[in-house]
């Protein structure tokens, strides 16, 4: 024994035995029950997906560290935890490339770009998972549990998850005990409430996480669910389904408690949990997706810096009242700092310096101003030009007028119709056939656009015929008749005489519409057109080979 010892460090001389690596290992142990249940439910494919995910996370971390010549950090096991969490938050039918993509995004972009473990502001696993979640086909196929998936090809029978029922405001068909054990559709890790609770208890006992975040999170969701259960469903049952449904428990236990992306102070924990809960309820009830845990946690991740500030413990020894007072005073002081500063533009003209002509200084000033304003002005001008050009060369007014004219014609030809839809059928003699629909969306009849030879040229008209073969109206689209002579036959009064007719209209005798005097040729042309239209509609109806109702 030597006589002198060099002191190695300041107090304390003891250290608690836990390490970062041990904490990560504990998280992995806590996830093992859920992983086991996933393998039991979804077969070996779950295990294969997990292996791919963990492997790619570790690989990307090692590669990034190698390429950037930083110290290898895979020994702290954080990449393994990320991989495990990523895999367990995916459906078992996911293709193998998805966890690889998620791992690349989570590990490289979210984690390493920001400085590695502890510096990322979003949970890498969750970020990778939500990136995969933006691909719609992954979000909609949920394999049924106990349907053993083959390792290679995926032809999963998609099962509706309990969340999609809850999203509609009704209870899912699974009873509560099934929800608890987990035979339901969903992501691999989230289905079994029981296994997740086991993980939570383990993490709490090992002091890896504090109970504040999960309790605040679940508590907020539970309270809101209790207060807002739909009619006819008892609030406790609704609450239980809300708590066990979807990824809430997994999010509350494993994602929201990620140390790097949650606040460090106890008060911050509570605020973080409550915020996650509120956002989850909001997204579950009002977004188009049935589930909102992932986005809720990611959003709160981005607010951690703020919660860290808000949640700082109050100073020891000054009491709550004084602490609040100080905080308010500080806030008031900060608010007082915000004041309007009157702009003080300096319009002094520059004095010509040595060796300059009298006007040169002004030129310099102008040049520098142009330099500052120039890029902005040119961008502004270019934008204006583009907008003007688009406006100029797309003839919006004409397009608008066409739509308006079409509507006018429809309302004349078939006053009861509110919507017209062109059918794909083009019978001989008709320019187009438009189906007219009433206010409740039922088919009223067809408007047939026909052309016939008038006195001065072709007359284009649209004839409305209802389903009984009765004319509902005639609208003239265009004509070239002589003003005040031929147009006498085109007045609304003259045209109204066709309304209610059916069969073949003659110019005289029974079922006839008399020609307007002085415009006989035009009248004949219109009658011929109406007859043709009636004929076309009658043949449309008797043909019966095309289901016109479906053409909308």
């Amino acid at each position, binding site marked *: *024994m030597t*006589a*002198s*010892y*060099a*002191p*190695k*460090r*300041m*107090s*304390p*001389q*003891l*250290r*608690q*035995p*836990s*390490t*970062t690596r*041990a*904490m990560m290992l504990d998280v992995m142990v806590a996830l093992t029950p859920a992983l086991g249940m996933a393998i039991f439910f979804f077969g070996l494919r779950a295990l294969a997906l997990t292996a791919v995910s963990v492997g790619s996370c570790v690989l990307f971390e090692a590669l990034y560290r190698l390429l950037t010549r930083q110290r290898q*950090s895979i020994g*702290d096991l*954080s990449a393994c935890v990320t991989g495990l969490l990523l895999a367990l938050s995916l459906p078992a039918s996911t293709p193998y490339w998805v966890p690889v993509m998620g791992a690349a995004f989570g590990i490289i972009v979210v984690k390493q770009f920001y400085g*590695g*473990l*502890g*510096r990322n502001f979003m949970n890498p696993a969750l970020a990778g998972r939500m990136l995969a979640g933006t691909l719609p086909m992954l979000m909609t196929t949920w394999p049924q549990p106990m349907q053993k998936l083959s390792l290679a090809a995926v032809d999963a029978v998609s099962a509706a998850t309990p969340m999609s029922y809850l999203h509609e405001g009704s209870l899912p068909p699974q009873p509560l005990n099934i929800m608890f054990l987990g035979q339901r559709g969903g992501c691999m890790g989230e289905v079994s409430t029981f296994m997740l609770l086991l993980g939570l208890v383990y993490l709490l006992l090992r002091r890896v996480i*504090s109970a504040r975040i999960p309790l605040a999170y679940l508590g907020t969701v539970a309270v809101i669910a209790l207060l807002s259960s739909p009619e006819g469903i008892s609030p406790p049952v609704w609450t239980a389904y809300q708590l066990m449904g979807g990824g809430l428990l997994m999010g509350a236990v494993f994602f929201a408690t990620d*140390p*790097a*992306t*949650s*606040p*460090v*102070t*106890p008060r911050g*924990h509570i605020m973080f949990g409550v915020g996650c809960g509120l956002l989850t309820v909001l997204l579950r009830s009002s977004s188009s997706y049935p589930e909102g845990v992932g986005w809720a946690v990611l959003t709160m991740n981005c607010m951690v810096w703020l919660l*860290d500030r808000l949640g*700082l*413990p*109050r*100073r*020891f*020894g*000054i*009491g709550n009242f004084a602490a609040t007072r100080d905080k308010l005073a500080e806030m008031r002081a900060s608010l007082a700092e915000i004041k309007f500063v009157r702009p003080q533009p300096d319009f002094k003209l520059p004095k010509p310096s040595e060796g300059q002509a009298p006007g040169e200084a002004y030129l310099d000033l102008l040049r520098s101003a142009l330099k500052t304003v120039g890029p902005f002005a040119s961008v502004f001008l270019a934008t204006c030009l583009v907008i003007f050009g688009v406006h100029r060369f797309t003839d919006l007014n004409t397009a608008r007028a066409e739509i308006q004219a079409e509507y006018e014609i429809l309302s004349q030809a078939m006053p009861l119709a509110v919507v017209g839809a062109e059918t794909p059928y083009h019978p001989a003699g008709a320019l187009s056939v438009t189906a007219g629909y009433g206010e409740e969306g039922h088919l009223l009849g067809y408007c047939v656009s026909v052309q016939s030879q008038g006195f001065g040229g072709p007359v284009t008209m649209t004839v409305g015929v209802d389903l009984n073969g009765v004319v509902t109206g005639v609208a003239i689209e265009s004509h070239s008749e002589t003003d005040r002579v031929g147009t006498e036959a085109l007045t609304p009064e003259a045209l109204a005489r066709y309304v209610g007719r059916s069969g073949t209209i003659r110019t005289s005798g029974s079922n006839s519409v008399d020609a307007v005097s002085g415009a006989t040729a035009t009248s004949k042309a219109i009658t011929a057109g109406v007859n043709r239209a009636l004929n076309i509609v009658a043949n449309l109806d008797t043909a019966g080979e095309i289901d016109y109702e479906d053409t909308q």
Partner: protein
Amino acid sequence: MTHSFFGGVYPATRKEMTRRKPLARLSVTPQEIVIPLIMCADGPATPMVRPGDPVLVGQPVARRGQTGAAAFASVSGRVAAIEDRPHPWGGYSPAIVIQNDDRGDHYEGRPTPLDPRQLTLEQLVERVEWAGIVGMGGGCFPAWEKIARSAGKTDTLIVNVAECEPYVTADYRLLLERSEHILRGAQAIARCLRCERVVVVTEGDKLNAVEAVERRLRRSGNGRVQIIPVRTCYPLGAEKQIVQTVTGREVPPGGSAIDAACIVLNVATVFAIQDALFQGRPLTHRAVTITGGAVTRPRNLWVPIGTPLRHLLETCGGLKEEADLIITGGPMMGVALQSLEAPVMKDTNSLVCLTAWEHKPDTPSGVCIRCGKCVRACPMHLAPTIIRRALEDHDLQKLSRYHLEDCNACGCCSFICPAQIPLVETVAQAASLVRKGGASYDGQLRA
């Protein structure tokens, strides 16, 4: 009814090694006693003897000059030298070296014992100053000043037997074996200071001492004294935390227990005070725990102040395996020894020889994963990880808002950190940076 304080950590106590070992006197007194002149926080005392002078047990060898506390010979013999000797706080400092003649003759010029019933505050302060009693829990602050300042301003006398440091059992053994003396001393002090309440605070792992004290209290029937066991938690023994635990009051920033109307005295201090008051004996001996996984026979010893620590270790059979670290004053707040030749001081409550497996030798500190355990462990409501981040960013404005001067260096943050980041040092560095206004910052974090 006890209150709780925020934070704290729960190190493995490992007190079972010595908790059943009674306080034993040294069978062989050391050949040489070293009495350092610096045994009081405010500075060195003035020697009263010259080399060659004969001294007896209890004879004053140093007195309070401008600074320091009186010191007494704890053995009889001859002053060999007044020279620089290793000091437990590190380095060398002047000390009176006494050659022991093993006769143990007592000094005759001792003051008369005082009558507990007619004790006055002046007598108490004078006697405590005469006996050279300092805070024996590790503070080394002059006890007489604390008592004089507290007179009339306090309503609670807290006798600190918390002993929240792991391994150490000296205070516990003292309370168990001398409970009658301690209670008598506490009552006398409380009467002089007009405290309404005397609270003996022990941690929950000392239940048979609690039982012994309660039995005595029942017999004496004095309602003013109570003993409360508290859940074991470090740093319960710190002044601010023990005041908060007992009364629920928080000591204001920069203040001491007096600002919360409390006076906190360590149990060894109370015992020394009653010895001085009612036996007329100065402070010459104290209880020391010699323990740790490397010690052959861990023991509690009643040792003369000034005994070299090497002698204590030899009394306990020496080291059975190589000690990775030797500490005085408990593993949490204590100081790593530079030399075993350093003597027992008035505040030395333990000699802990840790093996490598107990001590968890230095591992390179990892990266902060923001787990927040340091924030939840800090009893002074600081946020070490946030302070560290601000220090890394060299953000003085932020740092000055974090009340760094509140840090009491208890080390909970460093203890709990799973990444082994030396957070106490970081906070201390940040505090000194704020004090100096950032002038001396070299842009480098001490690893």
